[in-house]
């Protein structure tokens, strides 16, 4: 996986990412509920902690408290022993920790977990494992390279490690794109369940970007690497009914290759997206994954306020508090929306806007009671 230079045109694969309205007629589409969530980040260990952090820090702008979890804490949270954890990249450990927390949050029994699948997104794959190996190869030769390199690095490693260690035997897929990857994974899972192609899916994103290579790559793209942080976030999607928040719609779209913020495209996409929603509860919350940048945050706030016809939705920018976690950022945004809806006492809905280097993504989540 490499970052695509900004002048390179980008094609978004159609399978599963764009909304496929022809797959199942609207009449037979199922409601997709969110029945649990899990977060693993140096700044927060649960969705509730995350929202508390954002609420407490909303007026301020702060750098992340920590970019990395302590290794021992990460190993413990992942549930892997020393023998297994040395074979994987930090992004697999983060994914395992967040996945375990999501399954526990939903109270799933082992039999249900066995039927569960996973759709996971990331942007950069496993460089915390790979970089030292490349240095060893350069300095000491092939014999010094770990035999676990290939399986530790590849982008689908978190998906593989989660399904192996948690004994999940359902559908499994990895989305590797940009900062929108986590939300695209959630959207893909939502569409599969809605269209009767799966019943229970864990979906979200993970990233372990705090390495010199990733920092250098982002610097080359003209982005400040200083606020990078690792994180993973998953939500558990099911057909279960009841009072749980649900996902009502999803779309993903290409963004133009431009150095300036593509506000016009986003305005158009949000307007079209909201226009197609059914009789919706009001959008009272909007969460966006953009990395801390006051100018862009203000631009997004203005776009969202106009799109919801003058209402004043509460805006959250989680990267402000936990750092820029790239492919996990959009899943973190979805988890924040889920938690806000879970705490709501009246029907309401939330818009999750993800903006990446190449893609944009919109999720609409709601709660009727």
């Amino acid at each position, binding site marked *: 996986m490499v970052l695509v230079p900004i002048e390179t045109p980008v094609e978004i694969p159609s399978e599963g990412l764009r909304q496929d309205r022809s797959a199942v007629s609207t009449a037979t589409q199922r409601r997709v509920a969110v029945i649990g969530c899990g977060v693993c980040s140096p700044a927060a260990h649960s969705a509730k902690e995350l929202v508390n952090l954002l609420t407490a820090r909303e007026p301020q702008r702060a750098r992340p408290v920590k970019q990395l979890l302590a290794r021992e804490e990460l190993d413990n949270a992942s549930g892997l*022993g*020393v*023998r*297994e954890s*040395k*074979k994987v990249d930090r992004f697999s450990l983060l994914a395992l920790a967040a996945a375990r927390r999501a399954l526990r949050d939903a109270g799933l029994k082992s039999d249900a977990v066995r039927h569960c699948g996973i759709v996971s997104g990331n942007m950069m794959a496993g460089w915390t494992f790979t970089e030292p190996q490349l240095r060893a190869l350069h300095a000491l*030769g092939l*014999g010094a390279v*770990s*035999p*676990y390199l290939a*399986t530790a690095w590849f982008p689908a490693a978190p998906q593989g490690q989660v399904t192996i260690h948690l004994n999940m035997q359902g559908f499994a897929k990895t989305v590797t794109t940009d900062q929108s990857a986590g939300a695209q994974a959630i959207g893909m899972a939502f569409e599969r369940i809605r269209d009767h192609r799966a019943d229970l899916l864990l979906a979200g994103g993970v990233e372990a970007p705090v390495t010199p290579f990733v920092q250098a790559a982002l610097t080359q793209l003209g982005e400040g690497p200083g606020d990078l942080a690792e994180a993973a976030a998953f939500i558990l999607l099911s057909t279960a009914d009841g009072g749980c928040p649900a996902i009502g719609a999803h779309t993903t779209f290409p963004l133009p290759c431009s150095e300036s913020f593509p506000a016009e495209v986003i305005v158009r996409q949000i307007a079209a997206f909201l226009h197609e929603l059914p009789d919706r509860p009001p959008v009272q919350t909007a969460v966006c994954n953009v990395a801390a940048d006051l100018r862009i945050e203000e631009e997004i706030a203005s776009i969202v306020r106009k799109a919801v016809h003058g209402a004043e939705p509460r805006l959250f920018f989680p990267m402000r508090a936990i750092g820029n976690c790239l492919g996990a950022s959009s899943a973190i945004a979805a988890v924040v929306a889920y938690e806000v809806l879970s705490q709501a006492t009246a029907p309401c809905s939330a818009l999750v806007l993800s903006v990446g280097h190449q893609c944009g993504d919109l999720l609409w989540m709601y709660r009727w009671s």
Partner: protein
Amino acid sequence: MTNKSIEDTVIALLRELGCDADTILPVHELHSDLGVDSTELVELAALVRTECGLGAQRIDLVGVKTVADLAARIELLLQSGGSRCT
């Protein structure tokens, strides 16, 4: 170096690999008894090469099933001019 001491070296390296079986004996099968998978076998061979000073010499792992099998392959290499396990 005796075959017994090579077996002891292999057992110590299996511990270093993370193998947490209560006891490790020469008759134990690497895969079925000790849970060593194919990538771990490659790591074990790398540990053996370092420990026994075999440099880049290739250890033929085809057909190796037990701790004793692996020790025998190492002994063959050492007899054919390789270095010694420390």
